[in-house]
């Protein structure tokens, strides 16, 4: 096997090895994990899955990649993926099916609420910091509006 140069090399190498061991690649990676983020990694995986459901890339009845597939695609440990899946199952968004792995059992409306819930946890600290430094709610809303508009 001729290996490419550069950082992609290791991915090819790993994929081949996983294939050799009978672990096949599923769909493409949809989201990135940032280990330096203040958000726990398992939580980033949960968000990733939720957002896929929101975007309707994952629909009710669709299978999720197996724990091993997901772990090797997004480069996190199987334990962490297992934890994320377990919690999503407890939240009623996905379900383990004997021998089939996990499937999605919710739709975008159900997911929307939980997205907002985790959003408020995420925003708490930065908003608090702004509040402490004397920024008014009006000013904060202006900034949000400005950013929002810039995106269109």
């Amino acid at each position, binding site marked *: 096997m001729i*290996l490419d140069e550069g950082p992609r090399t*290791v991915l090819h190498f790993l994929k081949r090895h996983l294939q050799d*061991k009978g672990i096949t690649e599923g769909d493409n990676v949809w989201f990135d994990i940032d*280990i330096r983020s*203040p958000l726990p990694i398992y939580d980033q995986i949960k968000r990733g899955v939720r957002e896929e459901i929101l975007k309707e890339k994952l629909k009710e009845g669709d299978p999720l990649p197996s724990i091993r597939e997901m772990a*090797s695609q997004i*480069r996190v*440990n199987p*334990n962490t993926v297992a934890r994320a899946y377990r919690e999503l199952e407890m939240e009623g968004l996905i379900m383990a099916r004997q021998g089939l792995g996990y499937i999605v059992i919710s739709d975008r409306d159900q997911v929307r609420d939980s997205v907002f819930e985790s959003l408020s946890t995420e925003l708490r600290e930065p908003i608090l910091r702004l509040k402490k430094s004397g920024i008014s709610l009006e000013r904060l809303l202006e900034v949000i509006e400005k950013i929002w508009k810039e995106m269109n």
Partner: protein
Amino acid sequence: MERNELTLDIQNLKKTYKGNIEAVRGIDIKLEKQRIYALLGPNGAGKTTVLKSVLGLIDYSGSIKVLGRPIDEVRDRISFVPEEKNLYDNLDIEATLKLCQRLSTRFDNKQARELVRHYRLPYKKKIRTFSNGMKTAVYLAIALSTDADLYILDEPTWGLDPILRDDTLEFIRERVILGKTVIYTSHIIPEVEKIADEFSIMINGKIKYTGDLDGIKEKYRIIKMPLANEQSFECRDCLASAREIAKVSIVIENTDAVERYYKNDEATISIPDLEDFFQILVRSENGNSL
């Protein structure tokens, strides 16, 4: 292996070297199957002594079970990279791989050759002439190509450039995706952040903290605030506190205790990353000084 059996179970490990040097002062480690465990600590913390004890290379007091048994009964189910990476000095790669093949039926020559190629090692040069990083790569190529239940890796990225270091971490992760278990030592934070399921911070022969990255993000907050040099500081509910010039940094559980710092306008509160968390713990241990 029994279902709930620990892959590695260390209880009250102590090691005193000649001259009364207490390298390890009573530590416990419990490692479950299919996990990556990092022993993180500054140089001289005692990390290598722990691994040498696990491998049975030195005498120690306390109890160590590997895969539920004494190490000597399970040697063929472990694979390791030692601290001193000088064993094959007089051989070239070709001869080394042949030797490994003769020594172990679990050694996968094809995979080793792929790794040798990946690390860009020359086949015909004496390993003695290799750089530190290349010597590390030789050991990695061998250890990772040997099928084992537990991989014991002492500074597995020593001397490697950043790209190969990252690749190596992924190779290690791959073992775990395939169901294996890993314990390794490191003093490099990003290495631990990237792949450890669980880590212990070891300082002066003792384990000061055991947990995981997500756990510290959720359970703790770091608070930094100004503090005059002559002012005394005491924090009873802190996990650790470290003084620097004109300021103090603390690690504190994210409970009501944190709320009172929110009222302090000069305090900055943040979710810990491992770098800060580690620094404060180590400095706290070293008498709160720079």
